[in-house]
C-alpha cells in the first residue's frame, strides 16, 4: 500500500534514533499496530516510522505488579502474559482486538471502559523511554509503582500523538484481575434520568468497574459492570440492580462479549470515523442535543460520562464546529479525515515551548 521508501521499519531502538537524525524534510509519522487509522495513515510529504517490530515483554515480575515492554508490543500479547498470573491492565486499552500496541495506546492517551474504577492509561504508566526529535534516547519515571524523581516525562508522553518523540519502552503498573464479573443493563426513557443515575452511581461506594451509557432508538441504556470475588457477585449485582431501580443482569460469556465488543468498537458503521471526546457528565446533554439520531450516528458514553466515543459520517469540520462551540476537545481515532485534534485545542503557549525543545527541527508531526 505504502511505497516501501516511505516506511522505516525499526528493528532496534538505534534505528529509531537514526531515523530522527536522517537528513530530509519529510516529517515522521509514528505507527505501531496501525489500529488507529486516522492517526497512522501517512499524508503527502510524510514518512512512516513503524515500531511494530519493537515488540517484547522485557521484565515482568507478577509480585511487583509491574512490567516493562517495548512500545510496539501488542496489547493482546501483554494481556495474555498478565492473565497467566491473574493480572490485567485495569483501564481496558481500546482496539486491542485490532492490534493496538502499548506505545500507540500511550501516545493517543486512550483508555477504555475499565477506566472508571482505578483510572486511565495516565495512571498506570510509570516509566517511559522515548527518542526525541533530535534522536536522543530519554528516560523518565521508573519501574516502581511509586516514584517522584525528576519531571514526569511519562505523563507528558500520554496523548502526545508521536509529536514530541517516539516511545520505545514503557513500564506499567498492573493489578490483580477480578475473579468474576457481572453487568447490570438498565433502560431509561429520558437522558436526564440516565445521566442522573450515572452520576449517583459514580458517587456511590459500590465500586463499579465500568459505567457506560448508550443511546438507541427507544431511549438510553446504562451498562454498569461489577468485578470481584465470585461467591458474593450475585449479591452485589442484585444490590446494584436495586440501586438502578431495575434492569437485566448479564454474566458469563454474554457479559464478557458485551465489553469486548464495546472496546473494539464493533458497533461502529463500516464507513464511519471514530472520535474520542473528553467531557463531564454535566455536558452530555448539551452534546446529545447537537448530534444526529443514534441510528445515523451511534455513540457510547463511557467512564460515567467523562468520555464519549462518537461514530461520525458527516464532514469532520462539522463536528469540529460543534465541539468548538461546546468547548470540548476531540481526537480522531478511526477514519481518513483530519486534523487529528478537533474542538478545544491544548494551550499552545506551554505546549510550543515543549515541542521546540524536544523537536526543534520539526522531524515529527506538528500539533
Amino acid at each position: 500500500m505504502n511505497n516501501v521508501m516511505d516506511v522505516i521499519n525499526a528493528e532496534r531502538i538505534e534505528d529509531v534514533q537514526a531515523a530522527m537524525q536522517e537528513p530530509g524534510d519529510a516529517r515522521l509519522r509514528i505507527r505501531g499496530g496501525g489500529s488507529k487509522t486516522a492517526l497512522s495513515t501517512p499524508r503527502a510529504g510524510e514518512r512512516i516510522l513503524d515500531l511494530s517490530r519493537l515488540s517484547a515483554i522485557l521484565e515482568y515480575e507478577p509480585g511487583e505488579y509491574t512490567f516493562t515492554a517495548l512500545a510496539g508490543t501488542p496489547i493482546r500479547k501483554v494481556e495474555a502474559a498478565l492473565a497467566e498470573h491473574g493480572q490485567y491492565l485495569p483501564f481496558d486499552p481500546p482496539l486491542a482486538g485490532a492490534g493496538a500496541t502499548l506505545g500507540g495506546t500511550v501516545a493517543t492517551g486512550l483508555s477504555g471502559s475499565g477506566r472508571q474504577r482505578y483510572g486511565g492509561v495516565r495512571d498506570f504508566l510509570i516509566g517511559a523511554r522515548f527518542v526525541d526529535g533530535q534522536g536522543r534516547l530519554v528516560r523518565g519515571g521508573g519501574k516502581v509503582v511509586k516514584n517522584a524523581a525528576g519531571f514526569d516525562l511519562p505523563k507528558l508522553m500520554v496523548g502526545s500523538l508521536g509529536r514530541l518523540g517516539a516511545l520505545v519502552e514503557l513500564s506499567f503498573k498492573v493489578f490483580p484481575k477480578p475473579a468474576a464479573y457481572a453487568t447490570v443493563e438498565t433502560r431509561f426513557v429520558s437522558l436526564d434520568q440516565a445521566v442522573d443515575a450515572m452520576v449517583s452511581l459514580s458517587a456511590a461506594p459500590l465500586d463499579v468497574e465500568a459505567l457506560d451509557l448508550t443511546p438507541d432508538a427507544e431511549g438510553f441504556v446504562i451498562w454498569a459492570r461489577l468485578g470481584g470475588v465470585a461467591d458474593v457477585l450475585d449479591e452485589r449485582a442484585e444490590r446494584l440492580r436495586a440501586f438502578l431501580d431495575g434492569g437485566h443482569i448479564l454474566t458469563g460469556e454474554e457479559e464478557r462479549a458485551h465489553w469486548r465488543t464495546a472496546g473494539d468498537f464493533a458497533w461502529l458503521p463500516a464507513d464511519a470515523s471514530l472520535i474520542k471526546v473528553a467531557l463531564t457528565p454535566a455536558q452530555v446533554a448539551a452534546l446529545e442535543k447537537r448530534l444526529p439520531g443514534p441510528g445515523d450516528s451511534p455513540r457510547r458514553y463511557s467512564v460515567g460520562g467523562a468520555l464519549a466515543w462518537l461514530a461520525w459520517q458527516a464532514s469532520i469540520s462539522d463536528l469540529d464546529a460543534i465541539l468548538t462551540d461546546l468547548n470540548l476537545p476531540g481526537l480522531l481515532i478511526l477514519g481518513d479525515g483530519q486534523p487529528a485534534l478537533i474542538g478545544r485545542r491544548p494551550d499552545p503557549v506551554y505546549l510550543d515551548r515543549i515541542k521546540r525543545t524536544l523537536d526543534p527541527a520539526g522531524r515529527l508531526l506538528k500539533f
Partner: protein
Amino acid sequence: MAADALMSDLERLYPPKRLLRAPVQLAPYESDALTAFRTRPLAVVLSETQDEVIETVRLCHKHAVPFVARGSGTSLSGGSLPLAEGIVIALNRLNHILTLDPQTRTALVEPGVANLAVSQAAAPHGLYYAPDPSSQPICTIGGNVAFNSGGAHCLKYGMTANHVLGIKAVLPDGEVVEMGGDSLEGVGPDLAGFFVGSEGLFGIALEITLRLLPVPEMYRTVLASYSSLGAAGDAVTNVVASGLLPGALEIMDRLAIQAAEASVDAGYPKGAAAVLIVELEGERIQVEAEFARLLTVIESTGADEVRVAQDAAERARIWKGRKGAFSAVGRLSPDYIVQDGVVPRSHLGEALARIEELSAEYDLRVANVFHAGDGNLHPLILYNGREPGALERAEELAGDILRLCIQLGGSITGEHGVGVEKLAYMPEMFNETDLAVMGELRAAIDPLGLANRGKMLPAGDAPALHAHGPHPLEKAGIISRE
C-alpha cells in the same frame, strides 16, 4: 540593584504587613521541614489573591530575581528552601475552595488550601480526596502538586498526579496558562500531569482541579506482629500473591514500634520485632469476603499475634501509631534524617537487611517505617547534631541507602521529591541525556531559571548544612514526617 528595584515595586504592590523584610519576620521562612538547610531570603510576600501572585512573578521576571513559592513549609526534601538573593511567595492565604461539584466529583481549589480541608469539604457529599501525606492537616495542595505527594494508599490509588485533572498556572515569566480541564479524560499531551511534581520549576499553580472519590463503604484493618522484620516482609509477599489489593500495607520495625508506644499508646504488641498493618476498603459485601481471605493468608504467615480492628475507634488507634511514628522516633534522638527511597517490593527484605548492616557500620540507629505495598522505604536515621561530624555521617549513610535503592532498580524518592536534599543522587538515577533534556525543558519554560532555582536539577549551588532539630510545627505535634 535588581533586588532594590524589585523591593520598591513590591512596596507598591503589598502593604507593609504583607511584605516581610525584617530578620525576625523572615526567620520562620528560612527553612522547611528539612531543617538541616537554612537560608534567609531577601523578603517574603504574603499574597492574598491570584493577581498578586501573577504580578509578583512578573516583577521577579522583570528584575531577574529568583522566587520560591511556599505553602506550609512541610517539605522534607528542602523543596521550599529560600535563596539568599531571592524572595519567597507565601501562598497560605490563597486558601479558598472555589467550587466543589458533587456531580462531576471535582473540587477547584487555590494552592494554599490544606490537603485535609478538601476531604472535609467533600465529606457531606460522601466524597474525599485520596492522597493522604502524613502532614495532611496542614500541608497545602499547591505543595502537594509541586512535589507529587503520596501517602499510605499509593499502590491502589496513586499519587497526587493521579488526582489532578486541571491546573491554571503562572509560568515563571508571568504568562498564565491553563492545562487539562475538569474531565477525567484528556485529549492531547497530559500537560497538567507533567506540571505535577515539577517541584516549582515550571511556575506556580493558581487553581487546581482535583478529582474526588466516593468514601469507601467499609474499612477492615488488621494488625499482625512478627518476631522478625523478614517475616513481616514475607507476609507482604503472601498478601500480594493472594490476589488481594489492599488500600494500605504498612510495616514498622522494633525501634519504631517502641517509639510509637511510648508516645501515642497505640496498643501495638509489646516486644514485637515488626508489625504489619493491612487495610482493605470498598463495598461492604466485597470487603467482608476479601477480609475472610486476608485473615486466612495472614494466619499462614506465622504471625505472633493478629488483631482485627472491631470498630472505627480501634482502626483510628492503629493508624495513630503509624502516622505518629516519625515524630515519635524523633523523640528518641535530638536529630534525625528521614529517607524516602523506593525498592521493588520483592527486594524489600534485601534492602532492610542491608540497611541494618549499614546502621551497624556507621554506628547510627535507624528506625524503619514504610509503605510495604509500594516498596517506599522510610528509614529514619538518628543522630546528634551537636556531636561533631554526626550529621555528615548520617548524610553518608542516607546516601548509601539511596544508592542501594537505585541498585535494586528503585527510585531515590517515592513521595518527598528531590528538592535540595537529593540533588547529588539525580545523576545516579538518570543519565546525562535524561538530565540534559530535563534541563532544556526547564529552560524553555523558565529561560531565566527563576522559579525554585537550585531544586531537583543538579547544577545549582549546593546549599549549606546548618543547625539541627525538628521543625517547630513538628515539635508542637502539628505535623509529622511520613
